[in-house]
């Protein structure tokens, strides 16, 4: 039997329809964002981190010792994989997660207050600095949280949890009139 597969974004159902204008607090969902996980071989963690962080348009998100999520704003998923394979060679295991993870960017003056409703980590800039990233629990869902601006946070979540996290975030942001849309 021949079956057609539609490559659907995990939040297509939620964000269907004409985009509404963005409010002060806005949740932007990355559309076909290139994401990969990199797990360094034992003993080569520092070398891999140096190779990755020396590349300007790759953003490195800390997951655990020797493990990162790499986000690229300029590459296609395939291009990112090729670039990482060249950078890391046999020093690390690289797995494409562009279809496996969903990236959401929360921005606005109340971003911290919204996140504080679900995240048990101090988000004050003195504790969670600009450029910082870590895996945290948001409600009951494990996400990778990073601060990319004073009031701008990015959450990376497994695809199958994306709808649930999206609903949670919209509920958390309702008093602040949080709006949501795809990024392009």
């Amino acid at each position: 039997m021949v079956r057609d597969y539609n490559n659907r974004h995990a939040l297509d159902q939620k964000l269907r329809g004409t985009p509404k204008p963005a409010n002060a607090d806005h949740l932007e969902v990355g559309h076909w964002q290139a994401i990969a996980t990199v797990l360094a071989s034992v003993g080569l963690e520092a070398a891999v981190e140096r190779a990755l962080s020396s590349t300007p348009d790759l953003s490195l998100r800390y997951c655990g010792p020797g493990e990162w999520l790499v986000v690229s704003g300029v590459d296609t998923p395939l291009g990112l994989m090729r670039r990482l394979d060249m950078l890391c060679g046999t020093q690390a295991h690289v797995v494409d997660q562009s279809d496996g993870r969903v990236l959401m960017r929360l921005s606005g003056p109340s971003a911290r207050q919204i996140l504080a409703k679900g995240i048990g980590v101090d988000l004050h800039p003195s504790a969670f600095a600009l450029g910082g990233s870590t895996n945290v629990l948001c409600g009951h869902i494990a996400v990778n949280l990073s601060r990319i601006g004073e009031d701008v946070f990015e959450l990376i979540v497994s695809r199958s949890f994306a709808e649930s996290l999206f609903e949670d975030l919209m509920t958390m942001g309702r008093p602040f009139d949080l709006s949501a849309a795809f990024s392009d």
Partner: protein
Amino acid sequence: MASLITCPHCGVRPKEEFAVRGDASLIRPASSASDAAWHDYVYVRVNPRGRTLEHWHHVAGCRRFLVVERDTVTHEVYSVVDGAAAAREVRR
């Protein structure tokens, strides 16, 4: 139960991010050890009052196993170390 755990990789985190995986002070017997030794290792556990060593799995964070030393009466946490580092320490 101790409600804040200082993960050596992630920093201070609420206990909801972790799964407690049992006694960390047990040492696995040799494969040639007696059935009684293996029975004790697999099934017999103490229920201590006071200081204990436990494996905590940081499920929602770095996903590393940690060895947490805590007090079951006062909920005080004395130390948290990475499981791999603790295992190397024991082997030495």
